[in-house]
């Protein structure tokens, strides 16, 4: 399958008054057509920055230092601001975590949806509005004509997230990047959104990058998963394989941390230690200090992301040795 997006060795740097450090170091992945890629990892591991790098929405003090992202045969990072704008929203669209704050409170939902379509489609305002209503209907929203006229504060979080999804799909994007789209929502609403996204995936035939830290969500919706830690991808595998046979010690640790719904436990197993601060210099494997099976080599040398099995990549000396 030909990947639609190919990210190679992405490095993203943050400059603060007190120095520059890398928040994303050497992230590479491929996104297949129609595929849903889950990007999981703990808070601060660089998931959002990775996605923002791809869409060129990094803040003023953050920049892509190296790497390339090939989309439709061109490197996104080399596009002019104007070309980038055409891409954004048009071919690559985004959904953010907090639907309540992601929409401008002072404009109607319709206004903000129309605004999205106008620069990317040959369409009049009126048609765009009509399309908005259609899209909202697709999202399972009742009385969309009314919703189009309402302001964000008049709608519930679940509704707004649907609006956001409708909006992001409005220009038939090739790629949809959803940054924790359900984290701020109640479980029941989250379930509905996930259901909706599962349905839409096929209907709109978009590739999705889903960012989350909830492994349950990943299991429900993704085709492939990439596990991030400390600005690096530690393991990538098809979802089923990862859940059945995680290789990387960090991934394994993560799974064990989650309390089970269907059995009593007296103690949860934990990953000892803490995530190092980004400003700290690490040598060797970033996970080494917390790894139960860490060796001298782990502390010295950083492992590469290696394909251990068909479609299953892992960044761990131990795993490599096991395979060897």
């Amino acid at each position, binding site marked *: 399958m030909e990947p639609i997006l190919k990210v190679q060795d992405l490095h993203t740097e943050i400059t*603060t*008054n*007190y120095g520059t*450090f890398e928040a994303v170091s050497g992230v590479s992945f491929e996104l297949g057509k129609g595929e849903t890629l889950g990007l999981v990892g703990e*808070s*601060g591991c660089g998931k959002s920055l990775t996605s923002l790098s791809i869409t060129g929405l990094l803040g003023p003090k953050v920049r892509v230092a190296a790497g390339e992202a090939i989309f439709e045969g061109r490197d996104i990072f080399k596009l002019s601001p104007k070309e980038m704008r055409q891409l954004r929203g048009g071919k690559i669209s985004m959904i953010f975590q907090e639907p309540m704050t992601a929409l401008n409170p002072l404009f109607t939902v319709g206004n903000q949806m129309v605004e999205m379509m106008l620069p990317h489609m040959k369409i009049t305002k009126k048609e765009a509005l009509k399309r908005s209503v259609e899209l909202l209907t697709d999202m399972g929203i009742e009385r969309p004509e009314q919703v189009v006229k309402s302001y964000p504060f008049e709608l519930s979080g679940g509704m707004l997230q649907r609006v956001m999804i409708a909006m992001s799909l409005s220009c038939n994007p090739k790629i949809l990047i959803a940054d924790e789209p359900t984290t701020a929502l109640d479980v029941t609403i989250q379930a509905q959104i996930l259901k909706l996204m599962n349905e839409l995936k096929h209907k709109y035939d978009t590739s999705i990058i889903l960012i989350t830290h909830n492994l349950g969500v990943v299991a429900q919706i993704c085709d492939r998963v990439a596990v991030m830690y400390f600005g690096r991808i530690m393991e990538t595998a098809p979802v089923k394989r990862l859940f059945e046979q995680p290789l990387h010690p960090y991934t394994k640790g993560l799974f064990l941390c989650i309390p089970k719904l269907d059995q009593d436990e007296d103690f949860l197993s934990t990953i000892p230690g803490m995530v190092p*601060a*980004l*400003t700290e210099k690490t040598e060797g494997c970033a996970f080494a200090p917390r790894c139960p099976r860490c060796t001298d080599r782990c502390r010295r040398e950083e492992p590469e992301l290696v394909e251990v099995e068909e479609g299953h990549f892992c960044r761990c000396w131990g795993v490599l040795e096991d395979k060897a």
Partner: protein
Amino acid sequence: MSEQKNIGIDRPSFLQRLVKQKMALVGGIVILLWLLVGLVSFFYTPYGPNEVNMAEKLLAPGAGHLMGTDNFGRDILSRMMCGARISLLLGFVAVCISLCIGIPLGAFSGYYEGKAGNLIMRVMDSLQAFPMLILVMSISVALGRNSFSAMLAVGIAGIPNFARLMYAQTLSVKQSAFIEGEHAIGLPRRDILVRHILPNCITPILVRLSLSLGSAILTVSSLSFLGIGVQPPTPEWGYMISDARGYILTGEWWMIFFPGLAIASLVLSFNLFGDGLRDALDYRTQ
């Protein structure tokens, strides 16, 4: 975003951050300089600030008198030096008055929120509805024309500023979980106010303090300019400008130029400093 993501452990100290604010640094240095000049003026000025010497009146800046002399032959540099201590003192006392009355009022009404607090804030609102300068002029004329009443007037007019700031701060700090925690522990309300809420409101108050000092100095000098502030022949800057305005036409620009520059530089410094202080104290701008 959680604090925890902040690059954290080796976060630079407040002082380091303040020093990073170059403009604030400049402001702070100029303030210190003026303070120093004011202090020095107690012991040394090139000439007596009120020393009349008609033989040397209206001399342009030159070797003998670096900033020239005024219509009484008084040395402008010497007067400016004394003016620094007067302006700083008047401004400082005025702001202290606002602060000492405004902060307790604001904290009380913000924390206890009851009828009394509500009434206090209404009074503050009404006071704030007055055009500042008019209020100050009225009060200081009513209290008699001298530097003390000018100071008091500026101080009184500044109370609502601090009261309202403190009120808003108290309300917002009161929402913090840790205050609720103190309640849960059973810490008496007064202790919570004094030990937890007040210290956590310090930051914006410091900023406001710096800015208020600037504007208090400006207001006092405006009063003196209008002839309400200080008694002659006090070398207050605004009064010096007022005195000098008749001489600008005859070309004696130095009489009006230097005091104006002094006011502007001192007030600007306080503003710069306050601004920098705000930036240095504000985590968001990191």
